[in-house]
C-alpha cells in the first residue's frame, strides 16, 4: 500500500513509520505543523509542535529512508481543535482536544488529502489495533493497557478506520522504546508528550482566562447559598476538589466538589462527594466504529477518560442519544467528554456526553 505516516517527532510515530516500511508499504513521512507560530524548543514534556520536534521527525524519516514533508494544518487545527476547545469551555463543558484532533485533523484532513493524492491510508503511532472482520475493519484496544489510545480514536467512522494503520498496537511502550533504540532512532529516549500541545505553559486555566476573560462569579452550594468566588467558571471541571479557595467549611468538615458549571450565569455549584454520583449518562452526536447501536439494550463497558477504567454498563441508542446505565455509580462526570462504548476490547462507538443523571 501507499501510506502517509504522520510523524510528530516522537518515538511512537517514528517506530510506526519504520514498521510500516518493513511491512513492505510505500511510505512517505509527514509532519503536521499545527501552530502558525511554532515555538523553537520543546518545553518540558508538552507538545509535538515545536521546530525542534519537526527536526526530530525529519531525522527519523532520514534514518528510516523515507521522503519527508511538513504539511501546514495550522488553520484547520486552529478552527477545528483550538476554537472548539475554547467554545466548549465557554459553554461549561470539558472537551478532549486530542480526540477532536484525531477526528478532524489526522483522520479527516490528513486522510482525505492522502486519499485524494493517491495514498491508501495514514499510519500513526497510536496504541490501538485494527482487525479485519467480516463486516470490515474494527477498532480494538492496544495490548499495553497503560498506553492504550483506543479511547481518543473512538470518534473514527468505519470509513476512517478503513484508512488507519496502527502498527504499534501489539507491543508495549517499553518494547517500542527498546525497538527505537535498536533501530538507531535518536528519539528513543524522548519523553512522552502529555497535556495539551497548544498550551505550552501547561497552565490551561490561565490560558483560558486570557481568552475568555476572568469575570468573577459566585460559588454556590446546593441550596443556592454563596460560599465563595471564582475567576471564570470555565476553568473548573466537574468533580474538581482542589483550588476552590472556599473559606466556609462544611458542617461536618467533609470536602466539597464541583457539581455544576453554569456559563450563562457564570456560576459554579459545589456539593458533597455523594452528590457527584452519576448512574446514567446521555451522549449526542454519536459515531459508530462498526455496526450502529440500536434501541435494544446491550451489555458492555463505557469509558469516559483517555486512560480511565472500563465501567460495566448497559447501553442503547434512543431518541438520537447514546445512553449508558452504569452498574455502579460514578463520581464526577463532566459534560463535553466523550463516552466510548466497548464490547470487550472492541470499540463500538462514542458520543459527546450532554447530560448525566444520578
Amino acid at each position, binding site marked *: 500500500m501507499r501510506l502517509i505516516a504522520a510523524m510528530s517527532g516522537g518515538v511512537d510515530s517514528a517506530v510506526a513509520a519504520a514498521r510500516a516500511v518493513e511491512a513492505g508499504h510505500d511510505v512517505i513521512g509527514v509532519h503536521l*505543523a499545527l501552530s502558525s507560530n511554532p515555538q523553537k524548543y520543546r518545553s518540558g514534556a508538552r507538545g509535538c509542535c515545536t*521546530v525542534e520536534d519537526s527536526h526530530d521527525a525529519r531525522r527519523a524519516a532520514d534514518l528510516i529512508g523515507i521522503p519527508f*514533508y511538513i504539511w*501546514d494544518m495550522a488553520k484547520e487545527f486552529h478552527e477545528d481543535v483550538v476554537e472548539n476547545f475554547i467554545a466548549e469551555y465557554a459553554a461549561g463543558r470539558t472537551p478532549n482536544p486530542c480526540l477532536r484532533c484525531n477526528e478532524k485533523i489526522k483522520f479527516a484532513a490528513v486522510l482525505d488529502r492522502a486519499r485524494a*493524492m493517491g495514498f491508501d491510508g495514514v499510519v500513526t503511532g497510536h496504541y490501538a489495533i485494527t482487525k479485519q472482520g467480516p463486516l470490515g475493519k474494527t477498532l480494538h484496544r492496544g495490548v499495553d493497557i497503560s498506553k492504550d489510545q483506543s479511547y481518543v480514536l473512538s470518534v473514527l467512522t468505519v470509513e476512517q478506520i478503513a484508512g488507519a494503520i496502527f502498527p504499534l498496537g501489539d507491543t508495549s511502550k517499553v518494547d517500542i522504546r527498546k525497538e527505537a533504540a535498536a533501530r538507531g532512532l535518536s528519539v528513543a529516549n524522548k519523553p512522552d508528550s502529555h497535556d495539551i500541545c497548544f498550551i505550552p505553559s501547561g497552565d490551561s486555566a490561565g490560558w483560558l482566562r486570557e481568552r475568555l476573560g476572568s469575570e468573577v462569579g459566585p460559588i454556590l452550594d446546593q441550596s443556592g447559598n454563596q460560599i465563595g468566588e471564582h475567576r471564570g467558571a470555565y476553568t473548573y471541571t466537574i468533580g474538581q476538589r482542589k483550588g476552590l479557595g472556599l473559606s466556609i467549611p462544611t458542617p461536618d468538615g467533609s470536602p466539597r466538589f464541583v457539581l455544576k458549571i453554569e456559563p450563562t450565569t457564570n456560576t459554579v455549584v459545589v456539593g458533597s462527594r455523594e452528590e457527584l454520583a452519576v448512574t446514567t449518562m446521555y451522549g449526542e452526536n454519536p459515531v459508530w466504529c462498526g455496526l450502529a447501536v440500536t434501541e435494544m439494550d446491550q451489555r458492555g463497558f463505557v469509558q469516559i477518560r483517555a486512560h480511565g477504567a472500563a465501567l460495566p454498563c448497559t447501553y442503547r441508542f434512543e431518541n438520537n442519544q447514546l445512553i449508558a446505565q452504569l452498574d455502579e455509580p460514578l463520581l464526577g462526570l463532566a459534560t463535553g467528554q466523550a463516552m466510548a462504548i466497548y464490547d470487550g476490547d472492541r470499540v463500538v462507538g462514542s458520543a459527546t456526553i450532554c447530560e448525566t443523571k444520578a
Partner: protein
Amino acid sequence: MLIYLDHAATTPMVDVAIKAMTQQLSKLGNPSSLHTPGRSARKDVEEARETIARAIDCQPSEIIFTGSGTEADNIALKGLYWRGKAVGRNLVLISAIEHHAILDSAQWLHDHEGAEIVMIGVDTDGVLDLSQLADLIAQRGDEIAVISIMHSNNETGVIQPVAQVVELARVASIPVHCDGVQSFGKVPLSFQQLGLTALALSAHKMGGPLGIGLLVLRRGLEIPALSHGGGQEREIRSGTLNTPSIVAFAAAAQLAMEKMQERSEWITALREEFSAGILALVPDAYINGAAAKDRLPGIINLTFPGTESDTLLLLLDAEGIACSTGAACSAGVQRPSHVLLAMGHDDRSARSSLRFSLGWTTTGEDIDQVLGVLPYVIERARAANLR
C-alpha cells in the same frame, strides 16, 4: 531518474570548478600568512579575484569575498545604511520583491536601528514601479541612505530596471545596492556599466561551490564591518579566506562567461517549449511575469488554480521531479510568496504557484518527462485541495 528543475535553488557544480576546488583542497597555506605557502595561497586568491573581476566588470580591489550572497547583502545594506545615517539619512528603499536576505535585513534595521523602510511596489508582471521610486527620490532624496533593488527576481526570473534606478538615484547622490545572485553568469551583468555602489553575488547559483559569495563594493567607499577580526577584505569582512571555494568560484565564473550566450539561447528555447507544453496541458494555468520585457532564461513561475503548491511538490517529487515554490519556508511550512502577493496575487493563488528553474544540465527529455506526468499530478493535487 531524477529530473532536476530547481537550478535557481542551487545548480550542479561544473567540472572545472570541482577540479579547481579539489586541487586547492590539498594545498597548504593561509592567504594571510607571510611565508612561502601563505604567499602561494594569496597568489591563488588574487588570481581568482582578477578572474571574477573580469567576469563582473569591476576592479579586483572592489571584491570582498563572503560566505554567501546573503552575507554580502547584509554587509551592504546595513553598512550603507549606517554610512548614510551618520550624515542624517535614515530612509531605506527596497523593492517589495527582494530576497529575504534584503527584506529581513531591512526589517532588522527598522527594529534595532530605527531605520525607516519604504518598499517600492511592482506591477502585475513583477517589474519595479519606477515612478513610485522617482517620486520618493524627488520628495525625500536627501533622507535616503540606500536603495536596494535586485537585478532579477529569484521566484519569477523577471529582470528589474536597475540601470534606471541608478540613474534616478545619481541625481540625489544615493548609493544603490543590487542583489545580483540569480543573474550572475546567466545574463550580462556589469558593475561598471550599471554604475552600482554595491553588488552581491553567490557561487553556487552558477556552477561554483556552496558557501562562497562576494560583495562588490565601489573602490574607496568604506562602510562599517559586521564581523571583526583579522582585517581581511578591506577590514569589512574579517575571517580566513576560503581559498578552495574562491578558486572554484573563479573557475565557474570564467566558464559561465564563455558559455553565457550559447546556454542562454538553448535554455530560453527549452523554457518556451516547456511553457507552451504546460499551458496546452493545463489551460487555466498561467505564467507569472510572462509579459515582463526581460526574464532570466531558466525560470518559469506558474500558477495552477485549484491546487496547493506543497501538494504539487510532493507528487512531483514522488515522480522523481525536483522543483520548488521559490518562496521561503518557515520551519518547513510553505508561506504564500511575498513576491506573488506584491504582484497582485491573493493568498490562495499565491499558494497555488510553483517555480521550475532550468539550468545547464537540463535536457529536452527532462521537459518531456515532466509534461508526461503533469496532467496526472494536477488532477491529483486538485482532488486533494480541501481548503
